[in-house]
């Protein structure tokens, strides 16, 4: 149960970027997991060459990723959005990006499993009989912090509100005095920057190879949809539900079915609440 909560926090961190980019901006960025893995490799490189803490690296790299995201978005904007045909073709575009990132990573760093080392890896604290691994606790906390930060950004700032509106009516947003392209660039950048941190968290939890991203595509999008497109709070709740479901299945029934159960939950929830838990 506790493990599930911890895992949920981590899932939330991984899914936030999707929630922002896919949920709010309506950009089908299927390559998000690849950016996460890119974040993992950044953490790995800094960790193995300079012994830098992975999460610190993740944080330090957010500007780099933000910039990368901004560039990718501009490319996407120039090629699709400006012409007004986005989602589906964009999906194909991002599939391409996914392949390119994956292969670039494997060309540069090979296909060996990469891990990082940090003081808190392999240690745990005992909380009332259950050992809690720092390796999971730290990502969970960082995930929660990210969720909170993003939530505040969206609900309290003008930029945030504009981000929520931008996919609904671009012209109307301009009539509010906001530049939709700029707003989307910012939001996309933030989403990719979140991937930097998420990647760092990922590599502290599990080893990665360039193709690890494929394992997360389903989960990330499932969480976003389960929570309700674009709802940050929903993303967190959905992530925790999935995490707990997976853990409980693993502990009590047989881990073999845990993934199926998670996605089964998704199907059932969607059947009852077609817009997800917190969907509008």
């Amino acid at each position, binding site marked *: 149960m506790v493990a599930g909560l911890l895992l949920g926090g981590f899932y939330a961190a991984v899914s936030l970027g999707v929630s922002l980019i896919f949920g709010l901006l309506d950009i089908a960025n299927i390559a998000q997991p690849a950016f996460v893995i890119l974040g993992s490799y950044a953490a790995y490189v800094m960790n193995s060459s300079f012994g830098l803490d992975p999460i610190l690296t993740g944080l330090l790299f957010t500007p780099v990723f933000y910039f990368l995201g901004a560039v990718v978005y501009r490319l996407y904007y120039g090629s*699709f959005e400006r012409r007004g045909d986005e989602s589906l073709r964009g999906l*194909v575009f991002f599939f391409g990006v996914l392949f390119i990132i994956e292969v670039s990573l494997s060309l540069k760093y090979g296909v060996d499993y990469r891990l990082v080392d940090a003081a808190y890896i392999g240690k745990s604290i005992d909380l009332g009989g259950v050992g809690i691994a720092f390796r999971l606790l730290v990502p969970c906390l960082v995930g929660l912090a990210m969720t909170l930060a993003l939530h505040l950004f969206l609900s309290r700032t003008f930029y945030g509100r504009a981000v929520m509106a931008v996919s609904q009516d671009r012209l109307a947003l301009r009539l509010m005095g906001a530049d939709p392209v700029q707003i989307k660039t910012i939001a996309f950048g933030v989403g990719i920057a979140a991937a930097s941190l998420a990647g760092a968290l990922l590599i502290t939890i599990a080893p990665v190879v360039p193709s690890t991203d494929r394992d997360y595509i389903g989960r990330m999008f499932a969480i976003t949809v389960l929570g309700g497109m674009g709802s940050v709070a929903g993303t967190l709740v959905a992530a925790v539900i999935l995490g707990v479901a997976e853990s409980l299945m693993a502990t009590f029934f047989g881990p*073999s079915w845990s993934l199926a159960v998670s996605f089964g939950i998704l199907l059932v929830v969607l059947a009852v609440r077609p817009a997800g838990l917190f969907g509008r």
Partner: protein
Amino acid sequence: MMARPARALLVGLAVVGAGIVVAALRVNQYVYFAGYVVLQYVVIATAWNILGGYAGYVNFGTPAFFALGAYTAVFLIQSTRAPLPVLILAGGLVSALLGLGIGYLTLRLRGVFFSIATLALSIVLQTMIINWEYVGGSRGLSVIRPSGPPFGSYVTFLFTVMVLLSVVAVTVARFIERSWIGRGLAALRDNEEAAECMGVPTLRLKLFATTVSGFLLGVAGAPFPYYVTFVEPNSAFNLDYAVNALAMPMIGGTTSWVGPVIGAVLLGTAQQLATVTISSEMNLFIVGVVLVAFVVLAPEGILGLVRRLRGR
């Protein structure tokens, strides 16, 4: 007017005939292997497009349908050694059933919610297969081909079968597109509520589209066990099917039956060539670049590009 279906039939027969001739030529065996895969994608892309292109419901669960067709065949091979036509029909029917199931999902789920639900379905189904030892479970299963194909080698035979299936799929897609069904699907793609209010039986049409699409995807998967001779969940549920099913119609153009065919032939051939000419991981890289380049340069698909060039 009456000549139309007749002509379509004739063209279809001609293609099948040409396929048989190619099969009879006994050129390089490799042509059949590669040709099989490309044709398999013609069926997949065409089938996907009936739901995704005509009705606007994007199915991410293509691998589930394909694999269901394949595993239905595996099951029948294991249990009864049923002949290929039976496998194909059964694979199609079982997948059609799944299609009908997701058809009911469309009752409540639209847009991305539908897409993600199909993805979820695919994962659930894969887990079930993984835990089903009879069809090989997660370890996979070697399938031994029946000896003595009706003609040629077994692969030329499979190739011919795929030619036939492609013609069937394309004919069905073309028929749907040109009939009242296609127009109704287009209406509900644009605005489901308005379509319903204009007398379009949206649910029934969607069920029809998901079922037919599912059937054809299953049909594409059914001969697969005999093609690879070894079936395991990871490759049967490969993400590539989802990507290609989507990318091929996109590249060709989604509003017409020709689009998926063009896309499948182009991208399918490109992928086949890349696999056997570029001897490194670069082939995946190139596929990635091709995808990006295609959608960036030909935003309305090849068809759109052709139309635009002709327009000028």
